[in-house]
């Protein structure tokens, strides 16, 4: 049985074949890590970071767009509200104006019509009076002539009789 004290130094003397195999293994392992393993994982890390960054910026873009659209719609809505209230106001003013105009026009027309009627009544009355006066005079003279059998030559008498008759006529018509 060999103890550590006997063979200890042998442990620290590299053997040729051990060196050969260790070098071969080191080269293989290092090549594997340098050429395949690390590049592969670095590519994955980079791709992942890129994806995450891309998604974040995409999300930010979408949010910005949404905000913009929202602001646009809100602006439009506000504008529409303002427009609507303006239109309502205008319509109300217009209606008031139309109504008051109609009132004024109706009033003036009514007054006109009333005035016209009054005037025409007055003129008809006048006409009637004049024509009545003429006819009644003639009629009465003829009648009185026939009744009295005398010609009423005197103009003054004739006029006096006429007036008297008309007064009587007026009184009878008032009595009726």
């Amino acid at each position, binding site marked *: 049985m060999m103890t550590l004290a006997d063979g200890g130094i042998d442990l*620290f003397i590299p053997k040729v*074949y051990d060196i050969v195999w260790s070098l071969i293994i080191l080269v293989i392992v290092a090549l594997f890590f340098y050429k395949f393993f*690390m590049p592969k994982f670095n590519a994955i890390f980079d791709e992942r970071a890129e994806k995450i960054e891309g998604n974040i910026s995409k999300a930010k873009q979408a949010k910005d767009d949404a905000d913009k659209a929202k602001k646009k719609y809100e602006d439009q809505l506000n504008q529409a509200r303002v427009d609507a209230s303006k239109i309502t106001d205008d319509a109300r003013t217009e209606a008031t104006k139309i109504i008051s105009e109609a009132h004024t026009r109706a009033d003036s027309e009514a007054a006109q019509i009333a005035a016209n009627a009054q005037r025409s009544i007055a003129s008809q009355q006048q006409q009637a009076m004049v024509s009545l006066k003429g006819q009644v005079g003639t009629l009465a003279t003829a009648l009185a002539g026939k009744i009295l059998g005398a010609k009423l030559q005197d103009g003054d008498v004739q006029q006096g009789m006429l007036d008297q008759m008309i007064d009587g006529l007026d009184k009878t018509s008032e009595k009726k």
Partner: protein
Amino acid sequence: MMETVGTSMLLAAGAGPELPTVNDFLPPEILFQGTPFAINRIILIRLVATVVLLLVLGITAARAKLIPGRWQGLIEYGIDFVRNNVVYETMGELRGRRYVPMIATLFFTIFIFNLFGIIPGANMAATATVTMPLVFAIWVLVQYWIAACREKGFFRYIRDECFTPGVPWPIYILLAPIQLIELLIIRPASLTIRLFANMISGHLVLATCLAFAQYWMVEAANKFVGIPVGGIWFLGGFVMTLFEAFIAFLQAYVFAILATVYINLSYPDE
């Protein structure tokens, strides 16, 4: 080490337990004997470990997806750990970028190789001859000399390291050779011996525990004493197995971070 072995000799008078010996680390050649390509048990384990490493990591990398599964997540965590916690934290991202593959190679390979110390059937770390750690250490040595010559120039590096400005000149008589030895021998030697000795001691302690457990539980005549004592030894072996798993990681980490620090020392101070 000597004490353990000495005591065990006393206990194991006669047909004692099969205690681990230094021969475990100097196994006979079993293939291509006498050629530069001779293979012994440890080299066979190393070849198997290499194949396992390449297959496991290679398949993981080949199947790697943008959205990682659990296993890929674990491997990515390891890469992240080497890149950020070891390389970038020591030398910064700008300098460190080119060394990430190298440090990742060292870390993953040493870790897997070390783990074979507790894998049943192998029971021997693939880093358990002096040569494998030495080859890794020489790689580090070459890298930090290349970095020094590129970044500072050969003579400025020697001047900065061996004739550090601001030191009274008689000190240089002592300082310069020590620093030169440090640059050429002590750094790689410390990397090599730290890793190698950890694997040796781990194997010896673990194998001793299990050998005694076997001896007391199976071979000892007195079962009343043998079973409890053997049970304690087995418990020791169990705990040591877990501890070795931790050491496998720890030594890979220490090797990786020291390699990074040595390379970083070749760069001029900012």
